[in-house]
């Protein structure tokens, strides 16, 4: 997030797109609810009539995968109505003239033909956001889990740059991260293109730095993403070390994924449960869980925080860092003789400019009135950075992107005439390895069901509460039908949480070519009664 969570109470216009925040980030959503109660206007763009849509002043029910078209239409209106921030564009951005030319073509009337959202509503949204004193954008995987995820984000950046809604209280462009330490995993360099602290592996300066730090030659090119690695399993990838991910259920195209992992010569999985993925491993190593592990994590607002052990682990379970160190030592790798997590975190801080002012002791103390632990924290006396891009952008100037709309990888057809979109639910989390083992959760959410618009039941010969067969180009599952107006006509929804309804058998139609993020939000399907 460019802005801190406390800023969520402060915008006067809020634009939420592709984020089901009341279910997926419920505590963050309380900030937006307070802003709305205070009088802020809320615009919600989402294919489904989610909780946020019910609270909104303007709801834009766009067709799945049509975000870029909607955002181009909004940019067109902002420019046409003269709602741009000329000073900001002049002083902080580059490429506006070309962009201005580019968007003249993409009218809201055109966007209506793609998105299904009435042109006048697109105009209203653009005018509200464009005239906001404090306009803030929030998004989640509904923006990124598309073949055009990068274009979607760039389209949002265009709106921010046109209107200067960044670098100030209550503004910004704010992706909501979905896991307790997914931000920290990226910060720590668990990426094929970046060393810790987002230092590009292709930069000679950083290559030299890590060559010195690790005492060995390093590859000068980017690595491959997990998606590519899974594609290459059994071909050129023959061994994997997987820590705490139930790849088999969480990733698209389960059959492909299972085939990939089975074709490895050597699979080592570190986890707290014998997950569907761990069951395929040659060696399974039991890790300590949350509540048993001392360590540090980073949240969606870049706040670095301490996690503490409260109870001893069961049996012989060990911390992940210990397990990885032990394997490394047995392979003769140097620099893995750690006894506690503290020197590991301090090593990460020394090698990462965004963490350089942090260390274990500072995180142990927690935030104070003076020192805030939101990165970047470039030196010890630095107070931390709640708000990014206040004076300048990290790369100098904000760049306008002349994006084009693209259809999803697969579009509905005679064979697969219905859009399936996927996501999470409030009461369950991911593949239910955790929430499925928490007493009481079943009372609220005992099973998965497919949300279908009531008007579509008859057309597809379905019955509310009965089972149906749902098929995509990759496979079929059976799932119970639930009639609800949350789903628009022609689009259905299910979560990927339940192992007995493995929705990710169906997904996996395509990937964003740059980020390799799967298009989990769009999958044409066919429904048949059982």
């Amino acid at each position, binding site marked *: 997030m460019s802005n801190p969570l406390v800023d969520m109470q402060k915008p006067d216009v809020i634009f939420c797109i592709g984020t089901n925040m009341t279910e997926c980030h419920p*505590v963050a959503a309380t900030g937006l609810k307070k802003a709305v109660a205070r009088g802020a206007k809320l615009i919600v763009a989402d294919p489904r009539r989610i909780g946020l849509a019910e609270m909104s002043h303007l709801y834009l029910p766009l067709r799945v995968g049509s975000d870029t078209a909607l955002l181009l239409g909004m940019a067109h209106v902002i420019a046409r109505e003269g709602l741009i921030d000329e000073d900001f564009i002049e002083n902080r951005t580059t490429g506006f003239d070309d962009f201005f030319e580019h968007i003249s073509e993409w009218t809201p009337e055109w966007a209506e033909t793609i998105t299904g959202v009435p042109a006048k509503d697109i105009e209203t949204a653009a005018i509200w956001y464009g005239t906001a004193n404090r306009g803030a954008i929030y998004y989640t995987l509904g923006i990124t889990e598309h073949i055009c995820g990068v274009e979607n984000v760039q389209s949002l950046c265009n709106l921010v740059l046109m209107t200067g809604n960044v670098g100030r209280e209550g503004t910004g462009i704010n992706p909501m991260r979905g896991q307790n330490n997914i931000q920290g995993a990226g910060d720590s360099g668990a990426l094929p293109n970046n060393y810790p602290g987002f230092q590009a592996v292709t930069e000679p300066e950083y290559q030299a730095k890590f060559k010195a730090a690790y005492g060995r030659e390093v590859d000068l090119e980017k690595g491959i993403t997990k998606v590519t690695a899974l594609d290459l399993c059994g071909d050129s990838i023959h061994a994997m070390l997987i820590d705490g991910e139930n790849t088999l259920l969480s990733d698209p195209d389960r059959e492909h994924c299972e085939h990939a992992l089975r074709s490895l010569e050597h699979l080592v999985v570190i986890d707290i*449960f014998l997950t569907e993925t761990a069951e395929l491993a040659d060696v399974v190593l039991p890790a300590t869980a949350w509540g048993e592990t001392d360590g540090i994590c980073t949240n969606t607002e870049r706040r670095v925080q301490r996690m503490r052990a409260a109870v001893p682990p069961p049996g012989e379970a060990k911390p992940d*860092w210990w397990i990885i160190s032990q394997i490394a030592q047995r392979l003769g790798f140097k620099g893995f003789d750690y006894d506690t997590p503290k020197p590991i975190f301090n090593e990460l801080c020394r090698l990462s400019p965004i963490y350089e002012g942090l260390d274990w002791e500072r995180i142990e103390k927690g935030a104070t009135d003076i020192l805030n632990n939101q990165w970047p924290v470039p030196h010890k006396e630095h107070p931390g950075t709640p708000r990014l891009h206040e004076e300048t952008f990290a790369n100098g100037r904000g760049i306008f992107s002349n994006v084009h709309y693209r259809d999803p990888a697969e579009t509905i057809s005679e064979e697969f005439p219905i859009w399936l979109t996927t996501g999470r639910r409030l009461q369950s989390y991911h593949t239910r390895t955790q929430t499925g083992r928490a007493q009481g959760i079943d009372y609220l959410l005992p099973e998965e069901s497919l949300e279908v618009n009531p008007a579509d039941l008859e057309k597809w010969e379905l019955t509310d509460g009965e089972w149906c067969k749902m098929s995509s180009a990759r496979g079929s599952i059976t799932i119970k039908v639930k009639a609800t107006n949350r789903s628009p006509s022609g689009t259905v929804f299910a979560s990927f949480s339940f192992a007995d309804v493995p929705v990710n058998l169906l997904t996996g139609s395509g990937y964003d070519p740059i980020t390799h993020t799967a298009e989990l939000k769009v999958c044409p399907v066919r429904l048949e009664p059982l």
Partner: protein
Amino acid sequence: MTHTMEIDGVEVAFSEGETILEIAQRHQKEIPTLCYDPRLEPFGGCRLCIVELEGARNPVASCTTKATAGMVVRTTTDTIEAYRKTLLEMVVGENREVDVSPLRGYASGELADLRDKYGVNGTSITGATSGTSKTDDGNPFILRDYELCISCYRCVRVCAEQEGDHAINVMNRGFHTQITTEFDGLLKDSACTFCGQCIQTCPTGALADKKALRAVDEVEDAVPDKTRTICPYCGVGCSVDILTKDEKIVGIHPAMDGPANQGALCVKGQFAYDFVQHPDRLKTPLIRGDDGELHEATWEEALDRAAEGFREVHAEHGRHSIYGIASGRAPSEAAYLMQKFIRAGFGTNYIDNCSRA
């Protein structure tokens, strides 16, 4: 803009909009409250926070009275303390019980603490108890024990103001006041999201953490140990306190000073913690045997086998045949070491985390 006023004979500064209670608390004045939660709009229901204000005919509720320049306030006088004691007698007298397990909720001991402080024995005013417990609500999380309700409305207000859910409200008036959902139904059938905020703000334990109360026999009246950490679910990073008794997790309290959540939690962070000590947890390393099954092994055997497999694949297929996937759930030390394992060990960038799916 800063003004000054006098509290207990001392000149103090305040800003426009501050209440007498806020200013007094900043100056370490002990003013009792029951309906007050600093996260919520002042309500003025319990009247315990009354103070003497010079020029006012009657005592005023300090939580709802905004300070003005030149005010002269006395927070503790014999008269005020007598009023407070009488109010507490009335509140205590209409409750079934006051001494409740600390497992009921974060604030559940507030009434008992004030009773003790004011030496109220609960026998001077006796009679019927107010509030009817909702015993038919079989939800697994929230005990609705309204015989302990004192109508402070903190639950109703936290649900509306903090959560924006408006799942519960007030029915009837006076002695017959009752907290209820629409149509007096079950929480499951209301707008309730089971975030548990009502439990944690309740000052009497009338709303209580049913899951935590499963350990009531083990914990007895002792306050369980607390460990401050961060919630294991989404990326908001809410601060929580894990409640433990003898190496067992018995519940979760939201951290009221958590920088990301300021006391708020959701159903997962509040209640979905017992996966940690679930019998399904892996307790020993496992190695796949010649029979194709996974078998228990010692750490030495398992680590040797893990390392040997990587060594063999490396020898046969080269360093670009090995790939590491870091977790978005484990702490950063794990992710950092996973990338170091790949980069320092094999010299490649064949490393990713689970953020692409």
